[in-house]
């Protein structure tokens, strides 16, 4: 498509092209409006591979499988014995990374569950620490690139 031996010539031509094509006042306006607008350098980021990575492949069990019979306390997300007052059991299946991301970032509730359940489970998720089951997924959904 382009001649690799002449990148400079190509590039120079490319730079001059918009200047000669556009009337001066339009270019002046662009400079003005640019001050108000968003980014002027927009970079292509990895596409759906990354979305697929977070959405399809990662999930957070609540609670972790070693504590699967425990319930989660409403006030702080701590694990407590089954049937403890002011606590609820976890969801029947692990929460999808994509749902966790949306819930933490935009306040959405987990599909099929109430906002009270969502709030309590998110407290548990926010308490996850290095090495805990689900932590890697939690970290990846917090990564703004996802």
């Amino acid at each position, binding site marked *: 498509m*382009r001649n690799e031996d002449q*990148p*400079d010539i*190509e*590039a*120079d031509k*490319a*730079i001059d*092209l*918009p*200047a000669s*094509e*556009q009337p*001066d006042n339009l*270019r*002046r306006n*662009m*400079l*003005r409006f*640019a*001050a108000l*607008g968003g*980014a*002027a*350098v*927009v*970079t*292509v980021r990895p596409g759906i591979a990354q979305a697929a990575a977070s959405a399809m492949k990662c999930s957070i069990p609540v609670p972790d499988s070693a504590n699967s019979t425990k319930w989660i306390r409403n006030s702080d997300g701590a694990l407590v014995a089954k049937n403890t007052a002011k606590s609820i059991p976890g969801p029947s299946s692990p929460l999808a990374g994509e749902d966790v991301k949306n819930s933490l970032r935009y306040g959405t509730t987990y599909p099929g569950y109430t906002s009270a359940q969502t709030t309590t489970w998110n407290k548990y998720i926010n308490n996850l620490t290095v090495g805990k089951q689900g932590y890697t997924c939690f970290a990846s959904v917090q990564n703004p690139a996802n």
Partner: protein
Amino acid sequence: MSAPIYRTDYPADCLTHPLDGLMLVYHRPSGATHFLIDPTSDMLAILAEAPCDADMLARRLCHRIGTELDDEALEVTAQRLEELLDSGLIRAA
């Protein structure tokens, strides 16, 4: 500290392609593709001719596109410089 001088490898390390009034750039050292919206490609072209500091860049940019140098032009230039620095297309030296 004196004002930093900005320089660029553009367009030598880049493939460029104008598209709909934007400049599409493939930057070889980073492997990144950038859409450049005016006046950033002009700023790169100016720095490619000769590195300079932010004030001089604003002055040369206004001269290039035939407009007055004022506070707004300085502000736009400073803002776009930040973006270009983040992208790695220019560096402070």
